[in-house]
């Protein structure tokens, strides 16, 4: 009964979203006010309907209702409670339902919080979101229905994929989807602007906070995925250039470009058509990401399901959304003209360069991700593109970007002089050089790569701090900083996060020590100043698995710094062995141990094992940097000028002429 209620509720949501997708647009065209007025309440009603459907699936998980095929495939009576809740999105069907649910939340939020937007424009925005909801809920209902019954019902479920039985992976999909799906709002605003032909500063101001929040979630979601892969896949990498990771990274790259170009559009009325295009592309890449992951065209740890009819449906949907919006763009965009001029040294120029660089980076990722698929589809051979390609491109193109970040933020809008900012840059340059040369010498050993990366990262940090100091008066600096407009504070914080991230990546990549060694109980192994002592193994059992647990002590100068217990688990239902790494984490270094395989051929206690022992300096800075970036995005969205009433915001629209 409960699954049928969920199914019914989702069907109602589909019907409502079809109406939401059609009525307000037609009403706007024909001038029927009641149809335009339908948009807000309808958009608000979607979330409870989809939410109820989602709740029904969750209840089916909690009640171990294995007559529901999806529950039978992804749960088990012995599965811990938290993973029964997160198991709802552990497979294909449920994660799509989550997609629709989150989309309905965004739609409801837009309906609630954009009262300042004119009724016509707002109705079209909600209508576009309704169309996307209609597409995804019909996809869920007709090709991937999570409520389908299984006859006869098995007495026990197949259990959740052991890789997903983890807190990081439990949180990763919802947050990532908040980001993915969040770009649908910027997309809807872009389409509404194309339809109505209104591209003023107010339009950019309405779009900005939504884009910031979506970007913040995407940043955290990607970071969580990276963190999860680091400790859960058992070999200590934090980014694999796996197609599914790339699928989430491409919208992030374009979303980052979008945030910057939206700022220029709002403040100066430049790059209007380009900003609209970026909003369309960011969401298209989110859809492409969903297609890549959900259609099964990839070979990857992330592709949990695949089915050709599903692939075809998403491909069609993708074609309609991307093709349709690009056609609309080609038709309407030539009418958007910006007459605003800016100098060669100006914030606009820096943002233009930023957009070019992020565009190239996204192109490089897209190429490396899709090229093997295209070659395979054309029967031109099976190839794969290795991580060295991506690493090379991001190093070469990322370095000038890092230098641009700090300097660009120092420049004034419209027209600035290099001479005005050069003394500050010079000071930071000296500080950056000292940092990048001294730290490798002092803590590690000299390396050109480390110095280059440290220089790039520390320049971002020093220049951003300089920017903050310039904007505040001496005296009570802390209070002055708090009083700074949140938009500026957000920018500085996000840039600082970027600097922390760059330093983390550099130090981890250059100075990590990774050893695969054979260790018998009682033996010890030294990495740098750390001694790892292997004390043997034990057999333990968890709620739904059995495991061999290794016991290690780590010493530094004969003083014990940590005891670690890495595990090799075998889950009772799925039988797959799983490596649970044990990590002693710290701000400047992680010590990482994972059990490889028993070398005597048995998992009896106290046999020699192949063991991975890693020393990872500054690896936490990678995720810390991402977190700081996300906080910056949130601060930017919290700027008080987004909360002013419509009356106060409209007259401040930027004049269309300037410069010449």
């Amino acid at each position, binding site marked *: 009964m409960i699954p049928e209620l969920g199914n019914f509720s989702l069907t109602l949501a589909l019907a409502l979203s079809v109406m939401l997708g059609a009525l307000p647009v037609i009403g706007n065209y024909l001038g029927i006010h009641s149809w335009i007025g339908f948009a807000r309440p309808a958009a608000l009603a979607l979330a409870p309907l989809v939410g109820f459907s989602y709740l029904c699936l969750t209840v089916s998980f909690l009640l171990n209702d294995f007559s529901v095929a999806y529950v039978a495939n992804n749960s088990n009576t012995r599965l811990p409670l938290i993973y029964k809740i997160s198991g709802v999105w552990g497979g294909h069907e449920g994660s799509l339902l989550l997609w629709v649910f989150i989309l309905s939340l965004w739609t409801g939020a837009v309906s609630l919080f954009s009262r300042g937007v004119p009724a016509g424009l707002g109705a079209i925005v909600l209508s576009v979101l309704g169309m996307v909801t209609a597409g995804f809920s019909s996809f869920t209902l007709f090709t991937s229905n999570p409520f389908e019954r299984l006859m006869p019902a098995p007495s026990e479920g197949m259990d959740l994929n052991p890789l997903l039985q983890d807190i990081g992976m439990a949180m990763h999909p919802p947050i990532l989807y908040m980001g993915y799906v969040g770009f649908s709002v910027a997309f809807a605003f872009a389409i509404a602007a194309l339809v109505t032909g209104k591209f003023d500063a107010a339009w950019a101001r309405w779009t900005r906070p939504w884009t910031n929040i979506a970007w913040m979630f995407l940043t955290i979601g990607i970071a969580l995925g990276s963190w999860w892969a680091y400790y859960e896949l058992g070999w200590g990498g934090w980014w694999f250039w796996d197609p599914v990771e790339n699928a989430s990274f491409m919208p992030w790259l374009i979303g980052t470009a979008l945030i910057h170009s939206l700022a220029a559009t709002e403040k100066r009325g430049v790059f209007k058509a380009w900003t609209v295009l970026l909003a369309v592309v960011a969401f298209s890449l989110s859809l492409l990401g969903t297609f890549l992951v959900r259609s099964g065209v990839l070979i990857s*740890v992330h592709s949990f399901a695949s089915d050709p009819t599903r692939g075809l449906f998403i491909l069609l949907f993708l074609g309609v959304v991307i093709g349709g919006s690009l056609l609309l763009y080609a038709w309407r965009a030539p009418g958007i003209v910006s007459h605003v001029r800016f100098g060669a040294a100006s914030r606009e120029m820096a943002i233009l*360069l930023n957009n070019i660089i992020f565009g190239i980076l996204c192109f490089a990722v897209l190429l490396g991700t899709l090229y093997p698929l295209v070659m395979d589809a054309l029967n031109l051979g099976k*190839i794969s593109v290795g991580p*060295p390609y991506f690493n090379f491109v991001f190093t070469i*193109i990322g370095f000038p970007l890092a230098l641009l970040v700090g300097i660009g933020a120092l420049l004034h809008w419209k027209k600035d002089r290099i001479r005005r900012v050069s003394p500050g840059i010079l000071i930071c340059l000296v500080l950056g050089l000292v940092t990048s040369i001294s730290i490798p010498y002092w803590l590690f050993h000299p390396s050109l790569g480390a110095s280059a990366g440290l220089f790039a990262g520390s320049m971002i940090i020093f220049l951003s701090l300089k920017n903050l100091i310039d904007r505040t008066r001496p005296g009570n600096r802390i209070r002055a900083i708090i009083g700074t407009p949140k938009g500026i504070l957000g920018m500085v914080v996000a840039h600082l996060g970027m600097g922390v991230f760059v330093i983390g990546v550099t130090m981890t990549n250059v100075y990590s020590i990774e050893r695969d060694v054979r260790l018998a109980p009682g033996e010890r192994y030294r990495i740098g100043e750390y001694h790892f002592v292997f004390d043997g193994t034990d057999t333990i059992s968890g709620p739904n698995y059995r495991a061999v647990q290794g016991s290690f002590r780590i010493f530094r100068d004969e003083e014990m710094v940590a005891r670690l217990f890495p595990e090799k688990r075998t889950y009772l239902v799925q039988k797959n062995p799983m490596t649970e790494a044990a990590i002693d984490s710290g701000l400047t270094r992680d010590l990482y141990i994972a059990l490889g395989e028993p070398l005597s051929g048995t998992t009896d206690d106290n046999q020699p094992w192949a063991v991975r022992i890693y020393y990872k300096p500054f690896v936490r800075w990678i995720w810390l940097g991402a977190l700081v970036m996300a906080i910056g995005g949130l601060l930017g969205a919290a700027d008080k000028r987004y909360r002013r009433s419509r009356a106060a915001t409209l007259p401040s629209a930027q004049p269309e002429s300037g410069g010449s």
Partner: protein
Amino acid sequence: MRTRRKQRFIVVALMLAGVSASVGLTLKALEKNINLFFTPSQVASGDAPGNVNFRVGGMVVVGSVERNPDNLEVTFDLTDTAEAVTVAYSGILPDLFREGQGIVALGSMRGDRFVADQVLAKHDENYMSPEVSEALKAANRDNFATPDPASDHNLTKEPAN
């Protein structure tokens, strides 16, 4: 006016040069980092390149896995049922590496052995990577039934040593 136009021209020209250089570098890097896939039959017949990294995939021959008891060196045979190639690897094999299962190795030929930098195993008991299943099909079209490759393509990776 003239100087401003000239200035703008220089800026645009510089940007174009930067973009073309970056795209050129990207394509060059892509070209250098493409790994082709070969079946054990192709390797046996000498189709695979001599000193370039490539991928080879097949089933691990039952009883062929030999571990050196003192270090982490291991050798095993990989077959597409028609031919077999010996793979040498030093390091920890993936969790799902087992005899009789499909795997993919990345590395290069040294003499008549394939020296792997990386061994990838699928992450599900029931299915195998599409490369491996196609290699098996190609080698033995008539009497070898392969599991359904469309249903799951999960792989776990093991890093270079």
